[in-house]
């Protein structure tokens, strides 16, 4: 029973770069014992970061729609997944977090700078798992769902080099894609980070400002319609807003494809203590639904088991 090995780790910030619009990329480093915990991290797992000690940006750097929420004093940690994990040496692991500035905690991330120490719990939860026998992986990302799928792409490249990857990334507009996009905007734009991971990338934007004009799930459906790959050879990995995940799960089921979705919930603890992060799932013994915990049983669930929120 006695195992206090999962204490909070102290990470050192080694870089923090503002990207376009509200996005930024934080690079942190774990050494020693903490590094050990991140050696085997699976894409889709997450960490809980304490940000209440960090500074708010100077007022002129807070966009007016966040001015009010910037006043909120934060208490709880915040969950983040990884966009990349690199093992420098066994006792030195670098983790990249791609963040989107939405409120008091993510505003505070922007002021972290080289040398700052932050307290992190994790890695937590269950990440994506690559079932044996699959030959093709479809990564379907909506908005800020992209980072863990980027991590997954690199991971698959490294560990299942024969698997073929097709990534779909959707957003309202080109600006809302949390990555740098290169190449011809209208046809087949390139996101160097995904291509770097050897992935064929499909972009969809609601306003057509890059790639396919429409929802990423419509693009996915089109692709599935045209695809000649046997469904049992494909696995779908998806992360994004819940309505999108619901549609991805529905399409996957319709086409007979296995599907894993990474869910998001408000989390107080991230470690199974508070029950705040309930995800309604099929699978009660009498056909009723049960609540599973996003932080412990997830955040990655089988697309078939989740009863998606309609609200």
């Amino acid at each position, binding site marked *: 029973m*006695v195992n206090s090995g999962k204490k909070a780790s102290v990470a050192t910030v080694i870089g923090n770069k503002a990207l376009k619009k509200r996005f930024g990329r934080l690079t942190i480093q774990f050494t020693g014992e903490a590094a050990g915990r991140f050696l085997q991290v699976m894409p889709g797992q997450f960490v809980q970061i304490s940000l209440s000690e960090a500074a708010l940006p100077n007022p002129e750097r807070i966009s007016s729609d966040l001015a009010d929420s910037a006043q909120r004093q934060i208490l709880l940690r915040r969950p983040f997944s990884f966009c990349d994990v690199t093992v420098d040496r066994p006792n030195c692991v670098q983790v990249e977090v791609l963040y989107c500035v939405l409120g008091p905690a993510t505003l505070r991330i922007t002021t972290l700078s080289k040398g700052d120490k932050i307290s992190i719990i994790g890695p937590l939860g269950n990440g994506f798992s690559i079932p044996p026998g699959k030959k093709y992986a479809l990564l379907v990302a909506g908005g800020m769902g992209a980072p863990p799928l980027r991590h997954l792409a690199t991971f698959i490249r490294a560990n299942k080099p024969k698997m073929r990857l097709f990534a779909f990334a959707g957003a309202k507009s080109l600006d809302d894609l949390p990555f740098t996009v290169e190449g011809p905007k209208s046809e087949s734009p390139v996101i160097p980070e995904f291509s770097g991971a050897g992935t064929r990338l499909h972009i969809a934007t609601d306003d057509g400002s890059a790639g396919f004009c429409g929802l990423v799930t419509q693009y996915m459906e089109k692709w599935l319609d045209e695809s000649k790959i046997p469904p049992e050879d494909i696995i779908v990995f998806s992360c994004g807003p819940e309505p999108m995940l619901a549609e991805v799960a529905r399409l996957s089921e319709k086409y007979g494809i296995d599907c894993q979705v990474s869910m998001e919930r408000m989390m*107080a603890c991230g470690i199974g203590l508070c029950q705040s992060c309930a995800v309604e799932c099929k699978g009660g013994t009498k056909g009723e639904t049960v609540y599973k915990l996003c932080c412990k049983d997830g955040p990655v669930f089988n697309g078939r088991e989740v009863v998606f929120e309609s609200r």
Partner: protein
Amino acid sequence: MKADRVDLSVDFTGIRLKNPVVTASGTCGYADELSEYMNVDKLGGLITKSITLKPRKGNPVPRIVETDAGMLNAIGLANIGLERFIKEKLPIIKELKVPLFVNVAGEKISDYVAVAERLATEEAISGIELNISCPNVKEGGITFGTEPKQVEKITKQVKKASGDKPLIVKLTPTVTDIAVTAQAAVGAGADALSLVNTFTAMVIDIESRRPYLANRTGGLSGPAIKPIAVYLVNKVYNEVAKSAGVPILGGGGIRTASDAIEFIIAGATVVAVGTATFIEPDAAVQIIEGMKKYCVRKNVSRVGDLVGNLKD
């Protein structure tokens, strides 16, 4: 005062706790979750999530929302129910070297009684905490906790059902005069009083103009409520507990050893750490260490000497 001379142990309802720090109900699961993050055996005690007769799924999400220096929760007493608790969790809990208190909730008095009766037969359980103060369920919960007559009735019946297990009654802070409900519980046989539970509260999402929580309202916990909780503990200590010789399990917003000591000086014999555990899973253990340092620094040989030691 040397650190190894400080006696942190306290007597609580006839049970010797090795220190006065327990983890609060609903914030430490059923103990096994927490043991990955700390040596649970270091705790003074552990209080389980509320157990009900039948399993409860709990409320739809969102179940929590953060507020300034606090959070609302409306978990809705999600729990695996009495039978699964006994079958699945008790064997794990038995392995621990730490007193376990089981928090009991229900919709009808007979539910509470049934759970207490069953738990009374389990040797591994040190005591029962009666939750008559949960603001997040439609029936039962807080409604039992606001009416002195109801407090008396339910305390009496559950006390009887609990056999020789000590009964801790958990009071709601949402009353005009908490000394009245505290007195009702003590009069009906409560072996200890637990306070405070959360305050009913609401956050509105101004974009959708809906309550942020699916349950509309939730219970406010965390540092925000600490000064109210300290006041209420001191009030109950002065007006009821001290003269009745009934110990208080105090809490509400404790994050640090200093916070915990405030509660002890106010009159709590034991302190419960809740929300803080979400932020630092081993908060309770850090608090125990800090408490020892305080005793060394202030030359306090027994932490029990601090209980209610508030000068005016």
